């Protein structure tokens, strides 16, 4: 039950894009059509779900003082996490290419983009900051990825429609995307009630 709770919280209330602005660059750049947004969203779920447990293991057994190495290596955290993410993305790309060429063709170009998607590194750093255990980190990874997926599909659908609306020229494109993201953030907040901590 606790894990379901973490999953739902990560997907809706603490949505990585709309509450923390993680992965905003690719969120704005790749959300022009629903089809491409769908591909990127799936890839993010995938990579977030895989790197989170791996980074948890690294943090617990290699970097912490209580691990087998017995020394506090936490100053290496950033470098190791980003290395894990970069190599996992590479690995996932190769595996998908071997196992399912059709999925590879639909995800192909988006996979390398994910290395520099802040949502992935941010998820891992949140996991460390909040001291999740292994199960919780898996649930948080999948939930965060799912929330990101929902958000990018929703904004892509809105942006497809808004092309036919009469937006002031100076606001067209990027400016409108920002304001839409803000409005969606408010909409997502109301999904499970507004977090009272935000008003303190």
């Amino acid at each position, binding site marked *: 039950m606790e894990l379901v709770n973490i999953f739902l919280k990560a997907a809706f209330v603490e949505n990585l894009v709309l509450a923390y602005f993680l992965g905003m660059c690719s969120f704005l750049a790749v959300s022009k059509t629903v089809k491409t947004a769908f591909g990127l969203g799936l890839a993010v779920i995938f990579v977030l779900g895989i790197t989170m447990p791996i980074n948890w293991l690294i943090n617990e057994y290699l970097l912490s003082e209580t691990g087998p190495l017995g020394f506090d290596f936490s100053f290496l955290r950033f470098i190791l996490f980003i290395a894990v993410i970069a190599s996992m993305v590479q690995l996932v790309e190769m595996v998908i290419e071997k196992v399912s060429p059709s999925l590879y063709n639909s995800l192909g170009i988006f996979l390398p983009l994910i290395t520099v998607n802040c949502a992935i590194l941010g998820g891992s750093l949140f996991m460390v900051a909040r001291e999740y255990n292994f199960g919780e980190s898996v649930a948080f990874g999948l939930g965060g990825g799912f929330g990101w997926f929902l958000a990018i599909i929703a904004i892509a659908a809105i942006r497809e429609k808004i092309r036919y609306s009469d937006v002031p020229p100076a*606001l067209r494109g990027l*400016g409108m995307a920002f304001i839409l993201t803000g409005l969606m953030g408010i909409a997502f907040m109301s999904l499970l009630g507004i977090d009272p901590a935000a008003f303190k």
Partner: protein
Amino acid sequence: MAEVTTAPVVQEKEPLFGKKERKLITDPLTDNNPITIQVLGICSALAVTSLVLPSIVISVAVIFVCAFSSLFTSLLRTRIPKSIRMIVQLVIIATLVTIVEMVLKYYSYPVYRQLTIYIGLIITNCIVMGRLEAFAMANKPWRSFLDGIGNGLGYGVILVAVALVRELFGKGSLFAGSPAEMKIIGASPDYMINTLAEGSWFGWYSNNNLMVLPVAAMFIIGIFIWIQRSRNPALVDVS
């Protein structure tokens, strides 16, 4: 290959602060702003703009990381093999960010706690990586260094401007948490304009809670983009 070897190498004299060098710093502040025009680095750091102090801290950190990673990448640019350049760049950036994190943790622990993961996320900030790819890999160290400073500044200007609006209207104060804290408007005698005291502000002004929420940053940047593009129609998206 022939053209490359036979072309006479013109040794251009490069002044330390010529017109071109100044342009490298001023351009990102206005017409080539990383956030409003290049759409780089919107990630992460916007979430900390609810207060001015952490925004300034993060801007300084980004300027530092951007400038020195450009410098080092540019120094190494002829020696980095193309196939592993991303990893080399990420290692340079991650090392600099680790230094920033340690310094901040040592000198100002409360601010470090406030920023939590956002310091680490400078690694994946697209501005840093984007400028390394687009500029530092093809230019001399000094100019890359200036380009790094310029883009870091362009980023910081937007961040601090958003934070000023959000803190003033959301909390009624400016620079909260720093020695220069100013309490501008609020419902207590500590503030310069006390909305509880008799006077023209009595009873009708209250802080805007929307400004405290992260989404406010989105609206404010949207409005900045709107203003900038209506003043300079050349920047308008064609699509």
